[in-house]
Structure formats: structure tokens, C-alpha cells
């Protein structure tokens, strides 16, 4: 109908509504279709803390944000270009995040007295000037859906539920995506509920055609496919990627994977995922508490499994005594901590990076452990694999830090060829000759001799061990030797991990250094600032203990080092202590990821605001 088509490089869309409005589902469908279409993308859901908050309330708003583009997409986007608000609460909660001049599509039917009051609006924002500056597209979504489904066999309640598909259809039209993938999905999902299937299909396609016919939309947008590397892709969240990475590690290590876990937000999905993989021999043990979970994992490690325990902050706090046991017994175990807002129960559904120092130091005595951190949802796969590799090769506990942002966020994963993953298989000790439980190989790691092996019967435990022989030893000098050996073993791993890589302007004055889940925001900020003419180098730590061996060299090369972190300065603390450099901190503890603009602004501030010149 002759609508204008505008080509965009990237777009950020946020779907928001009541928990019951199906926003997560709508968002995922849009994501899948967009992925199939060939865009690069990154997503982030935002759940309320309540399971099902009463409809219409501010704290019950559930959101799903998707950033997609024809370029390299690094984050779910700082601020949406488009908001789909299913009710007044969704509008109220989300409006502050929008770009100025953003498009707001609202379901006008939901803007009744009751909902306005629940959303604590004194006046209907659609009827005053408060939305000036935005492009508001008022759509009577509920009404239109009801009209579309008139005469259908489903209940009124179910009709109400279909409105998200109407909205989705409309969005498909607006961004010029096919509705077929969603129809296919519906056909399998609602296989056994033909009436619902029909209704939803109808809502979807009516929404699509509504976009085409209505005069509310004057412009249609087009985002070209991205130039992605060839191959097969799949969208994965960080938690999914973590789970798959662990199974892959077990297969490549030729071991069975044992997970001891206790549910906790936002780590539970790793348990859920892994419990589906029984045909891979994965054993998932839902323990009575976090302590039992890690202890069972330690027991399984002793008996020869690839042992894993997963948790979030408060759970890691509970596991610390047992982590010390793993240090002392030198058994391989992977501990995955999906960080969330603390201290204490804190902000359980929000993200944060405040468990680095807990991971580093949260145990009695001198008990060094290896610490890794994943940088993107997809990287969770690789770092889970890497954590397993290191644990098995060096017979050490490895803590892998991810966070709520990575865990729930998703991005396309270029599926690797399983054969391209390294063989990390281990040799259990079977040879009796010369066997001592605490003898060491060139990696300083002790032999793994598992129960069932004839002739290698031995005892281990939490008391200090005699060097080589592994018997209990109260000898004073032996204790110092062992403390130092345990430290050295961890430190030596620096030789077996990649160097810290510097990207951007290697000759810049400013180095921006991050770790873990902030990678995307930092990279985006650096990239944007560089486009604006600033000279900046960037480096990102995925290995926190030990640090990569070239770290000192890298860090000392730059006049200023800026360290953005979602905490009060934990990596900064370590860098200061380790390298005696006075880093510039950029800290945020709001339960939210960085917006790249926040980092960009700080960069510009440091570099003097005039393009660094």
C-alpha cells in the first residue's frame, strides 16, 4: 500500500506486559524468526521477582528485549527503539529506558481506570502530553484480537491470551519478517489443541495484515541480514550454553557428567537443562542443599566422574568449606556460579559481578582455586568446556563465573563441529608401580586413581597431606611446602591459557579492561568511541586466577586503565594488588548490565571530551 520502507542497521525492540501476557514467548518467537532471517542478535528477558504478580501491577511487569541488526551485535541494546506495552504498568516501567523519539505501540484497551490506577497513573498518559517526543501507536489490541477470533471455539480467556500473537504479527509486518516460522512452531506446540492452534494462527496473521492495512503505520522497516560466518546456527542463552558445554566436555573427556545442584535463581536452568540429557549418561542430583550438592560432586569426582556443581552467590557462600576440601584433596571439580545481586538474598533476579572476591578468597586457609569468567552467552559454552579441561588436567577445583545477564540473555551460536573440540580425555592411574597418591607430574597434578582400581587403594581427606605420599602429616615444613605447591600449581596454569588479547588501538593512552559478562557493553562502547575518533585499546579478562601471563606487560603499557565492573571495584582491587597500578574504576551496582553509553561517556570524560585530540 505504498508505505515507506526505511533501512536500518540495527533495532532494539522491547516487549512488555503482565507476566501472564506471554511476553517471553512473543519475544522468543520474534527472536527465532529474526535469527532465521539472518540477523545477528542479542536478547535479554527481564522477569519480575514474583512468580505471578497480580495483573496490572508495576512490579508484575515482564519484559523481553531484542537487539538485532545487519552488523555485529554485541548487547541486547542500551535503549529500545520500539516498545510494545501491553498495559499501563508496562508503559510506566519501561518508558524511562527508551530512546528519545522511540516508537511506542500500546494496547489501548488495557488503559482503563483499573489498570491506570494499578500502574499509579493519575491521568491516562495516552490522553495528555506526557508521551510527547515519542511516536505513539495506539492499537486496540484486545479488541482487534477479539474481533478476529469472533466465532472461534475457544473461551474468552483464551481469546484474551491470543492478543500477544496479534501483536507479534503486527511486529512481523513492521519489521518485514515472515510469519511462517511461528506458524510452524504453533503447529507443533498446539498439536493437541486444534482450536487454540487455529485461534493463534488467526491472531498472528490478522495482526500481520492489520499492519499492512492500518494507517497507523506509515513506515515499514527493513534490517538486512548480517554477514555472519558460514555455518549452522542456533540461538542459545548463557545457561543453555553452559549446560551444553559441560556435556560436550564430558563426552570429550570420555567421562560421565555428574551434577550436584540445589535450585537457585538464576542458575536453576542449568540443572533443568542437564536433567534432560539422561541419554548422554548425565546424572543430575538435586541435593537437599548446596553443601550436599558440592559434597556429592566431590564424591563423584573421587569415584571418577566429571563433577560439576552449579549455584548462585548465596549458594557459593555455603559451598566454601567444601571447596577447600576439593583444594586439599586435589580433586577435579567445576563450580559454576551464576552471579546475582547481593549481598545476602539481595536482588535475586538481577545481575551483578560481585562474587569475584568471594570466589578468590572465600575459604579458610590458603586455598587457591582457578577462576574463569564467561564473556557472552555463547562464550559460556566454551568456558564451561575450558573449566572442565583445566580441572581435569590439573586436578583442581575451577570456579566459572557467569551472571544473570549472561544466563538469561541469548545470542546466535555458530554450532561447532564436535570433532573440532579438543580431546580432553584423562588417564586414570592404574599402574601400581611407583604409585603415590600425592606424587606429581609435570603439571604438578597428582594421579587420579579411582575406587575400583586394584592395588591403588588409598585414603584422602581434608587434613594436611604429606608431600608425595599423601598420608596425614602434621609436619610443619611439609605444610608450607604443600601450601606453596597448591599455589604454584594454580599459578603455573598461566602457561596453559591464552595471553590477554588487546584489541582496538594498541598505541592508545587508554586501556579499557573488563571481565566476564560486561564484554558486550564495553566492546560496543569502545567501538562507538573509536568511530568517533578516540583512540582506545581494549582487553577483557576471562581468566581471573591465574591472570594471563602477559597481563602485567599489557596493563603497564597504558597511561590510564579504566575498569568498568558491575560491583564496587573487585577486579580493580585485584589489579591494584597484583600489578600495583592505579586503575580508574567505573562501578555500577544496580542489578542491571552496563549500558554501553555509560561506559562510552566515561571514556570520553577520561580522554578529554574533544575526540581525544
Amino acid at each position, binding site marked *: 500500500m505504498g508505505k515507506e520502507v526505511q533501512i536500518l542497521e540495527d533495532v532494539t525492540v522491547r516487549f512488555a506486559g503482565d507476566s501472564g501476557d506471554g511476553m517471553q514467548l512473543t519475544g522468543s518467537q520474534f527472536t*527465532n524468526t529474526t*535469527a*532465521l532471517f*539472518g540477523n545477528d542478535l542479542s536478547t535479554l528477558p527481564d522477569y519480575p521477582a514474583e512468580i505471578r504478580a497480580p495483573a496490572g501491577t508495576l512490579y508484575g511487569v515482564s519484559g523481553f528485549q531484542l537487539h538485532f541488526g545487519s552488523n555485529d551485535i554485541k548487547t541486547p541494546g542500551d535503549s529500545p527503539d520500539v516498545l510494545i506495552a501491553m498495559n499501563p504498568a508496562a508503559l510506566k516501567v519501561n518508558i524511562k529506558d527508551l530512546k528519545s523519539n522511540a516508537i511506542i505501540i500500546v494496547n489501548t484497551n488495557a488503559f482503563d481506570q483499573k489498570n491506570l490506577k494499578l500502574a499509579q497513573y493519575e491521568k491516562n498518559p495516552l490522553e495528555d502530553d506526557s508521551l510527547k517526543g515519542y511516536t505513539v501507536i495506539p492499537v486496540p489490541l484486545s479488541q482487534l484480537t477479539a474481533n478476529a477470533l469472533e466465532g472461534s471455539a475457544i473461551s474468552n480467556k483464551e481469546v484474551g491470551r491470543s492478543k500477544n500473537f496479534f501483536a507479534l504479527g503486527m511486529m512481523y509486518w513492521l519489521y518485514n519478517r515472515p510469519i511462517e516460522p511461528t506458524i510452524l512452531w504453533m503447529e507443533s506446540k498446539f498439536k493437541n489443541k486444534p482450536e487454540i492452534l487455529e485461534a493463534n494462527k488467526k491472531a498472528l496473521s490478522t495482526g500481520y495484515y492489520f499492519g499492512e492495512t492500518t494507517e497507523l503505520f506509515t513506515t515499514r522497516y527493513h534490517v538486512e541480514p548480517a554477514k555472519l560466518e*558460514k*555455518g*549452522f*546456527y*542456533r*540461538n542459545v542463552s548463557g545457561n543453555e550454553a553452559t549446560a*551444553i558445554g559441560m*556435556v*560436550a566436555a564430558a*563426552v570429550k573427556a570420555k567421562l*560421565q557428567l*555428574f551434577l550436584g545442584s540445589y535450585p537457585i535463581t538464576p542458575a536453576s536452568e542449568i540443572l533443568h537443562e542437564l536433567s534432560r*540429557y*539422561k*541419554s*548422554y*549418561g548425565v*546424572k543430575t*542430583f538435586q*541435593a*537437599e*542443599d548446596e*553443601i*550436599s550438592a558440592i*559434597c*556429592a560432586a*566431590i*564424591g*563423584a*569426582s*573421587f*569415584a*571418577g*566422574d566429571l*563433577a560439576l556443581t552449579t549455584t548462585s552467590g548465596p549458594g557459593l557462600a555455603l559451598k566454601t*568449606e*567444601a571447596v577447600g*576440601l576439593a583444594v586439599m*584433596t586435589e580433586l577435579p571439580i567445576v563450580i559454576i556460579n551464576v552471579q546475582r545481586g547481593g549481598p545476602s538474598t539481595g536482588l535475586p533476579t538481577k545481575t551483578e559481578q560481585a562474587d569475584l572476591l568471594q570466589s578468590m578468597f572465600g575459604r579458610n586457609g590458603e586455598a587457591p582455586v582457578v577462576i574463569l569468567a564467561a564473556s557472552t552467552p555463547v562464550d559460556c559454552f566454551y568456558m564451561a568446556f575450558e573449566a572442565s579441561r583445566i580441572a581435569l588436567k590439573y586436578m583442581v577445583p575451577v570456579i566459572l563465573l557467569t551472571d544473570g545477564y549472561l544466563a538469561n540473555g541469548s545470542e546466535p551460536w*555458530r*554450532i561447532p563441529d*564436535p570433532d573440532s*573440540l579438543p580431546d580432553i580425555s584423562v588417564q586414570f592411574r592404574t599402574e601400581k608401580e611407583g604409585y603415590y597418591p600425592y606424587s606429581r607430574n609435570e603439571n604438578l597434578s597428582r594421579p587420579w586413581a579411582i*575406587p*575400583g*582400581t*586394584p592395588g591403588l*587403594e*588409598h*585414603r*584422602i*581427606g*581434608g*587434613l594436611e597431606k604429606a608431600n608425595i605420599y599423601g*598420608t*596425614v602429616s602434621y609436619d610443619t615444613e611439609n605444610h608450607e611446602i604443600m601450601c606453596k605447591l597448591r599455589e604454584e600449581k594454580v599459578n603455573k596454569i598461566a602457561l596453559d591459557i591464552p595471553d590477554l588479547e588487546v584489541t582496538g588501538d594498541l598505541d592508545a593512552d587508554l586501556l579499557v579492561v573488563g571481565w566476564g559478562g560486561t564484554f558486550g557493553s564495553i566492546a560496543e562502547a569502545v567501538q562507538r568511541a573509536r568511530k568517533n575518533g578516540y583512540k582506545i585499546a581494549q582487553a577483557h579478562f576471562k581468566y581471573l586466577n591465574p591472570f594471563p601471563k602477559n597481563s602485567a606487560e599489557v596493563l603497564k603499557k597504558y597511561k590510564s586503565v579504566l575498569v568498568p565492573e558491575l560491583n564496587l571495584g573487585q577486579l580493580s582491587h585485584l589489579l591494584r594488588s597484583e600489578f600495583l597500578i592505579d586503575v580508574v574504576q567505573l562501578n555500577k551496582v544496580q542489578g542491571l548490565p552496563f549500558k554501553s553509553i555509560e561506559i562510552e561517556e566515561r571514556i570520553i570524560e577520561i580522554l578529554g571530551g574533544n575526540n581525544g585530540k
Partner: protein
Amino acid sequence: MANNESAVSQSEVKLTAKDFSTGQDVRWCPGCGDYSILAQMQRTAPDFGMKKENIVYVSGIGCSSRFPYYMDTYGFHSIHGRAPAIATGVKLANPELMVWVATGDGDLLSIGGNHFIHACRRNIDLKILLFNNRIYGLTKGQYSPTSEKGKKTKSTPFGSVDYPFHPISVAIGSGATFVARSLDREPKHLQAMMSRASKHTGIALIEILQNCNIFNDGAFELYTEKDTKADNVVVLEHGKPLVFGKNNEKGVRLNGFNPEVVSLEDGKFSLDDLWVHDEFDPDPTRAFILSRFIDNNALPLPIGIFMQIQKTSYDADVETQINNIKTSRGEGDLKSLFFDGNTWEVA
């Protein structure tokens, strides 16, 4: 369902007690009841029908928890209270192993209480040796959750005000399927209990009343000394009436739900009136009543197997479930794992 006979490998050469000794200096106090428990285990282990390398002893922390060091098998002397959890991991990783837990009243019932009741609930195939000396030995004499009310110890100089646990009641309340009691000073009986526990599939608790001659000496004298034990201990035997006394002149009968001691000498009651022990009773109620004899001074202390119930064990169910799924879906490979769900190609 895996049962012991099939799940464990038979040893070929007959082992002896000595084969199970590590030869390490045993570091309990001279006179400690733990020595006897160790000796009985070393004597009984050759009859488990297991190769040495397939037996694992897991312990927590306490005097009793040093036990694994002295058994020449695989062993894990872990951290305080966590032995049942660690043992659970060992057993799940390799159900072929026979896994014993050696633990104390503090280790199992105080700090380790949660792991203990959940192990009972799940009926995981662990055999628990509870060294109950009613005191914290290793930390030098504080009262424990099994210490009598009023007990004066280092941490209760004016007498404790805590009521004690009955470990066997706790186990039964939590769903345990095999519960037994024995005494450090009854070597033959203790051996029999170990041997019987070794044959049970699922959780097996043996509460062993053990003398700590340093911090709680004589706690069980009544049950172990020559002149008092016959009158104060009743040995539970399947199918036999509860008879005790120096000349087997006393018995326990059930008056409704009330156990009471009757004389077999005054002509009022005969053997036929007595409670006949049925260790295979699928109803744990009678075992529960037996577990509470200890509250009533008029009743003797029961030793023996209180009950044993057949139920699939947790580890066996875990294995079965995995095997079934593997059979029905085929073993997973990485390709199908990676390609699970929505995928698309960029060409």
C-alpha cells in the same frame, strides 16, 4: 533393580582381616571402643564378597571418622558432617562400589543431620556405622545430640538442658529401610550386624554404642558389664520372642501399644505371651516402638536388627532411569546435542 549379589563383583581369593589393615598406627586413645569396631570390620569385610578395591569408606570429622585410614580400601576422610553427601556422590558415580560411612554422633546427627535424614529418605545404598559415644570426642568432651539431659560436660558445666535424639527413631521417621544397634563390646554381634548390613540394598544404619573412655567413660556399662548386661539388654532375633535376663527369665510383651517387662518365672506369662520379633515387618511401627525403649528405664536395651524393608534404592533407580532412557532414545551424541532445537544455516 540392582541387588547386591549382582551389582558387586565377587572376590576370587579369600581375603583375611589382615588384608584390610593398612598397618598404619592406629591413633585412638588406648582403651577406646573404636578399636573393637575397627577389628570387627576387618574381620567381617572378607565376607562381603567384594574385592577390596570396590569397597569405599567415607567419613566426616571426629575420632570415629579416622576409621578409613585403617581400612586398606579406598577411603575418604572428609569434612565434618558431610560424609553421607560425599558417599552419595561416590555411590551415584559408581553403583558397583560398596560404600560405607563411618561417623560419630556429632558428625552424623549434629552438623550432618540433614544429609543423614535425606540419605534415609532417598534410601540410597550406603551402610552407615554410627559410633555413638554420646559425646564429642575429638574436640575434647562437649555434649552431643545423643547425650542425656542434665549431662555435665565442658560446654555444660551445670548440666545440659537438651533432650537427646534417638538416632534410630530419627532414621525410621525419615524413611530408613534397615536399622540396627550393636555394642563395641559385643564383637560377634557387631560382626553379624555388619555382615547383615552389607547384604541390605538401600540405606543401612548400625548404631554402635561405643565407649569413649576419656570423656564419657562407662556410658554403656549397664549394657556391657558382666553382672548387669543380661538384665539390661535384649537381643532381637527374627522370629524369636524378646527374652532376656541372666537365666532368660524375663521377657517383653506388648500390652496394646505398650511394651512391658514380664517375668517368665511367676507363672503368669509364658514365652507365648511375648513380643515375637519380625525384622521383615513392612510396617515400621514396631521398630519405632523398639527405638523408644531407651526412654523407659524399666525396659531393656534392644540390640540387633530393628527392621529391614525391601524397597528399590535411590542409586539403582537413578541407574535404571538413565538406562531406560538410553534404551528408548539411544545414546546421545554431540551432534544431536548441538543441533537440538531451532537451528538455521548461514550459507
